[in-house]
């Protein structure tokens, strides 16, 4: 404690020198006076007495020095001196200082921000026990790419599997359910079995998991609730346990609360979880005997790889497939076992790797830039260092000075970089599409921040040290630019490398930009302006018959139609270009024709619509007729098909009046019209043939698909939405509604390519700016080094143009080398982008030519500036300088 106090006082003493020094001088003076008086009293002369006193003191100045050293911390003092000296140097050279700091900040900031985003996708372990052994198990087919399991064969798999320690199930997607209380709310409900939480190694924060006797058909009605529901709705009341809550009109007992940060492996969210209570007997008959779909997860036995598991499960799968799946679509079904990480991150991994690679390239460019700048500065200061060492500064002293400077720059760069990283991360989160998992929760990662700071420190120190390590004593004092060549090769290499790296970044960004343009400018085949959709979540327990549901929608349709400025109101179940219900080509048969194709024939978009659908989206009917209002009340099954469907199903024939039989539902429909094609498989996926069924106004034929209202208004959606909202509220004020304009929905689909393009574009721009700064620095430095040579040349008759060419040649050589290496690297690297590109090849010549030109132009401009100033050198002055 006392030592610490002393230490602090000494640190404090560093910054308050003046007063203490005077005080001690006075004390010393009083000491000498007292001692001298004693001497005189003992009979000495005053002069002799003072001399004696000084001798006994051991010298006044020495005493002062000893006192001063005790007062402060000498080593810290010398560090501070180094810092002050460095700061003075930075002030003298602000452009150098700011460039280094900005470069470091960009490198550190961008790397930290991107790493914080991709960390959870690529590296961080999943928040489950034994996360490396958790897998998603099931079958996939062309319409469902996520593994699913059917109740009809789940038990068979579970009882006969070998590769897994444990398997657990979860219901597919959460469904809307109602909490009926004094404070009602619409919630998401889900079910899982009693083995689900143990499989993931999760225990409830409050209460317990389901008991085996609760996870049984006709077991007690118990639920687990999410932490969010517990917190927001029950104010974290611990008395929630064993309380009866009313879900969808019947009571359920709460047995536990899930942990705060719990995530479903499907990344869905749910508020209330019921036991799965899977009934083996019932599953054998449900859903036409194949059972209900669900998600299955498993934990591999230690030492079993995913490939081994797949091989071991294959016989079970084949047996199942041959038992349950109709012969004609059997080929479409496959066994799939994926690690949970792959299941969670889906296709975000490729994007994450690309971003990481891009940002590492930026970091490398930044490091090369700092290295180049530090080397240039080191060389420019060679004489200063030589003078200092001639005056007695040891080599260690000079190295320490250089290290101090490098550390100061790195620290400043790191501080600015952290601020930048925070800003960038926020921008990423705002910009990012929802399809990139975990982004909303991303926070700055301190580990990677320290890593980048360390890296930049090494970068700065290493290259800053080069000149200090080789400080020649007399040589640098006497001559200049003697060994200048050797290091300049290294620095030119760095610059060429930077140019090459920017070339790779730029070409990647250009390809993504072209692809994004293609996405944005493509023809959707429908109008999007002025159109919005209304999603209404009717509580199922109150609207429990299709009659009640249909009545509500028909009333809503009529009410909205009566509003002024409404052009068309349609009922559909989805809108293009995003989702649609999918069917199989092979499920359709033309009456009087043999089935044309083997296999499944791909998928078919299906929508159930009212006649106004085509009006509201302005999709022209190219043959035959649209549905009519009268058709809605007739029992006759009618369809409209898309032009793509017509040409594929009835090549060279008139489809109107032909009949199409759906094998699955066993209904035969009559084709009344052909609609123009619409982009219906998503923005970047190929179009699918489409069937429009008629949404009938007869309760028995109303159908199960959740309706979606499409409103086309003459007014702007902003003006029309409140009117529509109030109309629906008049019908039933409690139903939740969700409004979304079609433009928003289309734009949301483009979020992903927009995000990728924006980020890569930003990195490419940053890289280019830094590379150009680096190039400028090198050329300007070389030009300055050759001032005298230029003077001589001019004196010997070289024209100003010759001088310009001389300097430009240096730059052009570097640019050519960098660009050539860059193009080759970019052609290789762009292959990685292939799957992200839309209607543009990874070797798109236009993009590459554009990028090369851009880079060459900017780089030439950067060399032209110092070349021009060299050209304007006054030969007299150049020769006189030294």
């Amino acid at each position: 404690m006392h030592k610490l106090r002393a230490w602090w006082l000494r640190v404090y003493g560093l910054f308050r020198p003046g007063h203490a020094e005077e005080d001690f001088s006075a004390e010393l003076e009083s000491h000498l006076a007292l001692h001298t008086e004693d001497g005189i009293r003992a009979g000495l002369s005053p002069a002799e007495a003072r001399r004696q006193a000084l001798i006994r003191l051991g010298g006044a100045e020495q005493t002062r020095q000893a006192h001063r050293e005790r007062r402060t911390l000498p080593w810290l003092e010398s560090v501070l001196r180094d810092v002050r000296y460095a700061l003075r140097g930075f002030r003298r050279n602000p452009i150098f200082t700011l460039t280094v700091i900005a470069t470091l900040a960009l490198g550190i900031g961008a790397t930290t921000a991107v790493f914080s985003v991709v960390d959870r996708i690529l590296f961080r372990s999943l928040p489950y026990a034994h996360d490396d052994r958790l897998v998603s198990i099931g079958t996939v087919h062309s319409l469902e790419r996520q593994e699913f399991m059917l109740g009809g064969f789940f038990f068979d798999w579970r009882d006969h599997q070998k590769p897994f320690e444990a398997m657990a199930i979860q219901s597919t997607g959460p469904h809307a359910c109602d909490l009926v209380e004094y404070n009602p709310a619409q919630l998401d409900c889900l079910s899982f079995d009693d083995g689900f939480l143990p499989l993931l190694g999760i225990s409830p924060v409050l209460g317990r998991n389901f008991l085996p006797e609760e996870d049984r058909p006709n077991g007690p009605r118990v639920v687990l609730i999410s932490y969010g529901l517990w917190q927001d709705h029950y104010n974290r009341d611990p008395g929630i346990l064993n309380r009866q809550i009313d879900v969808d009109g019947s009571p359920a007992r709460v047995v536990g609360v899930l942990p705060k940060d719990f995530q479903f492996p499907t990344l869905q969210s749910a508020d209330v979880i019921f036991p799965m209570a899977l009934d083996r007997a019932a599953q054998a008959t449900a859903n036409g005997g194949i059972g209900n779909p669900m998600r299955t997860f498993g934990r591999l036995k230690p030492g079993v790889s995913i490939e081994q598991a797949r091989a071991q499960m294959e016989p079970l799968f084949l047996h199942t497939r041959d038992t349950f799946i109709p012969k004609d679509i059997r080929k479409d079904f496959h066994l799939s076992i994926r690690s949970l990480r792959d299941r969670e991150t889906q296709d975000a991994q490729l994007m994450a790797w690309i971003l990481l690679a891009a940002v590492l390239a930026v970091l490398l460019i930044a490091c090369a830039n700092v290295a180049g700048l530090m080397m240039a500065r080191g060389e420019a200061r060679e004489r200063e260092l030589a003078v200092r060492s001639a005056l007695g500064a040891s080599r260690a002293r000079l190295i320490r000075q250089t290290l101090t400077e490098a550390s100061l720059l790195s620290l400043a760069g790191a501080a600015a970089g952290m601020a930048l990283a925070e800003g960038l991360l926020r921008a990423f989160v705002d910009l990012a599409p929802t399809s990139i998992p975990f982004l909303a929760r991303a926070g700055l990662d301190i580990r990677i921040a320290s890593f980048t700071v360390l890296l930049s420190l090494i970068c700065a120190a290493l290259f800053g040290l080069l000149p200090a390590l080789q400080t020649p004593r007399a040589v640098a004092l006497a001559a200049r630019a003697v060994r200048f060549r050797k290091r300049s090769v290294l620095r030119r290499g760095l610059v060429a490398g930077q140019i090459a790296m920017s070339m790779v970044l730029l070409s990647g960004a250009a390809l993504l930009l072209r692809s994004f343009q293609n996405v944005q400018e493509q023809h959707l085949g429908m109008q999007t302006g002025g159109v919005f959709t209304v999603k209404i979540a009717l509580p199922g327990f109150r609207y429990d018959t299709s009659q009640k549901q249909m009545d509500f929608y028909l009333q809503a349709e009529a009410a909205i139609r009566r509003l002024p400025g409404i052009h068309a109101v349609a009922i559909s179940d989805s809108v293009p270009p995003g989702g649609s219900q999918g069917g199989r080509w092979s499920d359709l048969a033309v009456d009087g024709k043999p089935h044309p194709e083997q296999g499944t024939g791909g998928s078919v978009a299906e929508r159930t619509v009212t006649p106004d659908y085509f009006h509201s989206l302005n999709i022209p009917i190219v043959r035959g007729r649209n549905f009519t209002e009268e058709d809605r009340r007739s029992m006759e099954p009618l369809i409209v098909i898309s032009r793509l469907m017509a040409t594929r199903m009835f090549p060279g024939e008139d489809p109107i009046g032909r009949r199409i039989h759906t094998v699955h539902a066993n209904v035969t429909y009559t084709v009344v019209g052909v609609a123009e094609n619409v982009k219906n498989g998503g923005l970047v996926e190929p179009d699918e043939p489409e069937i429009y069924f008629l949404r009938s106004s007869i309760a028995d034929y109303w159908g199960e698909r959740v309706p979606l209202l499409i409103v086309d208004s003459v007014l702007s959606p902003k003006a029309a939405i409140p009117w529509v909202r109030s109309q629906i509220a008049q019908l039933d004020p409690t139903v939740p509604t969700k409004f979304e304009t079609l433009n928003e929905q289309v734009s949301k689909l483009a979020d992903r390519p927009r995000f990728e393009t924006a980020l890569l574009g930003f990195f490419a721009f940053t890289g280019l700016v830094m590379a150009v700064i680096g190039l400028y620095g090198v050329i300007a430095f070389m030009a300055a080094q050759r001032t005298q040579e230029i003077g001589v040349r001019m004196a010997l008759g070289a024209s100003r143009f010759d001088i310009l060419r001389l300097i430009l040649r240096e730059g052009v050589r570097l640019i050519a080398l960098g660009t050539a290496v860059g193009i080759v690297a970019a052609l290789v690297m762009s292959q990685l982008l292939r799957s992200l590109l839309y209607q543009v090849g990874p070797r798109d010549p236009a993009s590459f030519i554009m990028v090369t030109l851009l880079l060459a132009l900017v780089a030439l401009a950067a060399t032209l500036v110092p070349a021009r100033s060299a050209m304007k050198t006054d030969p007299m002055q150049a020769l006189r300088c030294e």
Partner: protein
Amino acid sequence: MGGKTDVWQGTLALMVMRTLETMGSLHGYGLARRIEQTSGDKLELNYGTLYPALLKLEQEGYIRARWGVSENNRRAKFYELTKAGRRRMRKAAKEWKQTTGILARFLSPAEEA
């Protein structure tokens, strides 16, 4: 140095504190002379080393200093022991006695053997 002993490291602080304990408040010169007297003039201090030692004790909070007027009307800086210094002194004195006691046993003539 003519039979006089140098003060070895570490003991000076103890001597200073002990002297201040018995004498109350003293200025640097007086303190030095007093230590020499107490040693029976066997110690000869290098006065210059006294001041950094005083500063160290002051920084550690064992003594405090204040400007005052000496017996012959000169301005001088007076030092006195703080409470912490008193405690510290007792402890150090005890440890020192133990050490010298042990050493004394080793160095005494082997009577009992």
